């Protein structure tokens, strides 16, 4: 238990200065983007209108009560039709339990995470905003068949290719 000033201090300084020569692990976000996990639970839900039967299992499974679903009977073809399907993304905690619960594969976790809004009311998404479309990537959470098609996740343990121009 003796102190020698110097030895430990110098060792530490060597580590920090070596770090200077190493490649920083930064992903410069707006320009460079990480491939997210194939199972990503992004900040949105994607809803497939054609598959949904309006059974409201998701709404029941959601312990948050964030999903609001109203169905009405369509008298023409004698089927239930979803009138409103609304999720408050500011209230949803992306636990994925609704996706797990959906018996008809009609609900997916979305892969997008850039959902910041200026106003509270804009965070409530209705069925048009949630609808399944091409520009809205769907994550493979609980849907392994979809996960396979998604790009492989970028990992920090692998070397990330970085654009060093903007340092």
């Amino acid at each position: 238990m003796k102190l020698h000033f110097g030895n430990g201090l110098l060792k530490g300084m060597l580590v920090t200065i070596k770090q200077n020569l190493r490649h920083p692990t930064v992903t410069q976000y707006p320009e460079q983007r990480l491939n997210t996990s194939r199972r990503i639970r992004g900040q949105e839900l994607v809803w497939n209108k054609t598959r949904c039967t309006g059974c409201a299992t998701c709404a029941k499974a959601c312990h948050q009560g964030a999903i609001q679903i109203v169905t009405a009977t369509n008298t023409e073809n004698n089927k239930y039709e979803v009138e409103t399907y609304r999720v408050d993304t500011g209230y949803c905690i992306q636990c994925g339990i609704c996706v797990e619960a959906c018996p008809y594969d009609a609900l997916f976790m979305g892969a997008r995470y850039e959902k910041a809004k200026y106003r509270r009311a804009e965070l409530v998404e209705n069925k048009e905003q949630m609808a399944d479309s091409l520009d809205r990537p769907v994550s493979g959470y609980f849907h392994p068949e979809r996960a396979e098609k998604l790009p492989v996740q970028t990992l920090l343990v692998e070397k990330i290719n970085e654009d060093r121009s903007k340092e």
Partner: protein
Amino acid sequence: MALHTEPFILNIGPVHPSTHGVFRIRATLDGEVIVDIEPVFGYLHRGVEKLAEQRTYTGIIPLTDRMDYITSMSNNLAYVLAVEKLAKVKVPERAEYIRVIMAEMQRICNHLVAAGAFINDCGAFFTPFLYMFREREKLMDLFEMVSGQRLTYNYMRVGGVSQDLPAEFLPALRKFLKEMPAHIAEYERLINDNEIFLARSRMIGILPKELAINCGISGPVARASGVKWDLRKADPYGIYDRFEFDIPTGTVGDANDRYTVRIAEMKQSLRIIEQAVEKIPAGPVISDVPKVLHPPVGEAYGHLEGPKGELGFYLVSDGGIAPYRFHVRPPSLINLTALRQMLIGWKIQDAITIFGSIDITMGEVDR
């Protein structure tokens, strides 16, 4: 002499850079020396126990994620263990291995944060903290790959885990296991011998062994005081009896011992993961459990060796879909029991260091 210092009350927290959240110490100071403290809790009391009484057994798992948000996997696991004990559910072999891997990864994750924050509290300008966060990011990647979220995993289920490991998980984990020891060595070079760090942390905030046991302190804090008590050895839940590892203990019980025990535990966790990765069998990951669980009437206390100490869940079931009583044994809260004895007589700077060495998460302290 008639001239003496006036004691005054200083609020350290709730919004203070090194109270690890929103803890508040109401300290009575004599100059810089702490004469008396009163810990004030509850700035993050969100009523988890009340909420849990209104939710299904599966619906509680996201809640446990948010309790100790640094160690979500361990929380999930502890809760799931308690429910399995209550409902007497068997877990498939592969799931057991996945659970061990996850729990130990989470332990490394937590100790990285704990050690980094502790050195930060000693006054290092973020450097070790950021280095450790860099490695934590690698773990985050792996967790995200498995569960889809970076922090709140919601991965364990009663009777197994929610999804199988993706194909690219094990190679990535092996790679991580290969490079992590070098990083730990780097931290040790960076800070372990640093004289200032030693002077700041050695012989500071000594927690005697008897006091630690009497206060119910568990985990690395107790082990640093020389209490050789690890539930993974003492009460091996899951399949922990199949792995070979040591329990690092400290000798003095000072802040430095707590730090070194954490670093040593990381190495042991790496050992466990290595063994688990080698032996992991193929097979199903979740047993046949009804979607809405109705455990029989009764009570169960399931606990595990969480990264911060003994994390337990005490559940009382009345046969319904929601637990009748849901109680958490929070290691963070109970580890603070001896805080007053540890802090009095030290200066503010030491108080911050000692507090940092205990490693708490407010989400779990207050729930």
